[in-house]
């Protein structure tokens, strides 16, 4: 694998970029692996990368039914922040944020992590109380998050409508300056490239159709559209399809899969300098480096694996965007798309061992998994390698739904995003 650096880039520029090789290999599957990761999104590829790099696991495959990075990794609105309320969440997302801050260098791949700040708007007294609770908890957890008055919010984000007469007036905002956005595809590609270079087999167009278990219960491998593949350990990192895969091992999950849509506008010159979110009116917006306004829409109300959503969801999203940023009313929607988000009852992920020996699951990220990618992958790799969770993900168990020890970000903030 050739290093991406200025010298190589200059050399290649002069000879028509003919010397760049494949960023990852496209191998056929071997008969068996030590570890199989099911799902080549950012979390799955990252898990393979950290297993190889930090835990010295040599014989790893990542199986992907489509093309790598083609699921929620390549479909989300790329918001990155760590200002979560509960200690467990703050620990996990802040672990991720620290890894984000050095990820381009670590992967020798520019993931374009842009710390332009994530601002969460408060529209009523309850929102203000909730934001303050987050800010105080974040400060004591070492997570940056600060309170802005409406005018300060407007200064930070000039298109914001702070008129007191608006339907949901802005009463202030919580700002995490270290938050921001990144280039989603690059995260998958960067992990894939490094993992592949360390010997991880990334096998695309290979759908898992069964999980094989020994009579004693432990995992022995998977059935795939490319034939059976043996494995001592299997990590399922399949987002919306987790329920379907875990069912193959006889494990029923506390998950539901919903359609989630997003959209972009036509590109315009820089006009929106940060990321701004509003839980109360359900609007999430930033501007990409290409100039498109990137807008996250809501989920439909019903389960679906169709990767499409409804017109009225788009309408409600844009209603909210225009309420907050009326100047964008004449902007044009360029493209919409849909993903499938797997949602847990407490809106926090599951990053854990399962009742089946050798089977591990990383799921339940709902609408906000992208931001956790490096942290999630990093601790999940640890969980698989050591057969026990890292202290950071110790709370994100399956058992919490049995004993009631939920990590209920949803209850605390209406929507976890």
């Amino acid at each position, binding site marked *: 694998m050739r290093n991406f650096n200025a010298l190589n880039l200059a050399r290649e520029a002069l000879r028509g970029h003919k010397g760049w090789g494949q960023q990852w290999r496209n191998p056929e599957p071997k008969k068996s692996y030590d570890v199989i990761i099911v799902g080549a999104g950012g979390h799955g590829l990252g898990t393979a990368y950290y297993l190889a790099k930090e835990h010295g696991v040599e014989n790893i495959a990542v199986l992907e039914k489509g093309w790598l990075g083609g699921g929620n990794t390549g479909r989300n609105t790329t918001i990155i922040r760590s200002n979560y309320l509960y200690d467990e969440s703050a620990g996990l997302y802040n672990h991720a944020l620290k890894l984000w801050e050095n990820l381009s260098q670590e992967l020798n791949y520019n993931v374009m992590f842009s710390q332009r700040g994530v601002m969460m708007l408060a529209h009523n007294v309850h929102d203000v109380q909730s934001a303050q609770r987050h800010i105080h908890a974040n400060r004591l957890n070492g997570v940056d998050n600060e309170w802005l008055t409406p005018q300060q919010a407007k200064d930070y984000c000039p298109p914001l409508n702070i008129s007191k007469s608006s339907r949901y007036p802005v009463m202030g905002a919580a700002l995490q300056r270290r938050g921001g956005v990144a280039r989603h595809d690059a995260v998958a590609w960067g992990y894939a490239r490094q993992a592949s270079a360390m010997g991880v087999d990334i096998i695309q167009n290979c759908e898992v159709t069964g999980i094989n278990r020994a009579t004693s219960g432990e995992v022995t491998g998977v059935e795939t559209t490319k034939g059976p593949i043996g494995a001592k350990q299997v990590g399922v990192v399949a987002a919306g*399809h987790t*329920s*379907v895969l875990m069912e193959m091992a006889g494990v*029923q*999950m*506390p*998950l*539901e*899969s919903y359609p989630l849509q997003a959209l972009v506008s036509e590109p315009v010159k820089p006009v929106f300098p940060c990321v701004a979110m509003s839980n109360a009116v359900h609007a999430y917006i930033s501007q990409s480096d290409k100039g498109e306004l990137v807008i996250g829409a809501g989920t439909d*109300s*019903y*389960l*679906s*694996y*169709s990767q*499409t959503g*409804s*017109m*009225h969801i788009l309408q409600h999203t844009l209603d909210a965007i225009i309420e907050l940023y009326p100047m964008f009313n004449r902007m044009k929607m360029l493209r919409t798309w849909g993903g499938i988000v797997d949602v847990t*009852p407490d809106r926090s992920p599951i990053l854990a061992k399962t009742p089946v020996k050798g089977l591990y699951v990383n799921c339940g990220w709902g609408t906000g998994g992208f931001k956790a990618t490096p942290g999630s992958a990093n601790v999940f790799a640890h969980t698989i390698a050591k057969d026990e969770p890292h202290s950071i993900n110790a709370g994100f168990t399956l058992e919490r*739904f*049995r*004993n009631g020890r939920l990590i209920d970000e949803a209850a605390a903030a209406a929507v976890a995003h």
Partner: protein
Amino acid sequence: MLVIHCPYCQAERPELEFANAGEAHIVRPNNMSDMTDAEFEKMFFVRENPKGVNLERWRHIHGCGRFFNAIRHTVSDKFLKVYKAGAPRPSDAEIAELMK
């Protein structure tokens, strides 16, 4: 926006009149106190979440107000059948027939 046939109104109505109410045929036992924690977990948290035929509840909340059940395919989003709350769960054979 889906179109949903309400078994009480006996007509198709736009989705905007409805609220989805989650998985159908989850039994709330008469004597809840006898449930184990695992049984409670299964009832309250664990969901089928199938990629395929889903048995789900809807409420015609901005219409006749009634809860009812539906069988819908979660890939095509097409409704195969709707039936009133309290009606028995269609048999697997019947569902297979509907799929045709």
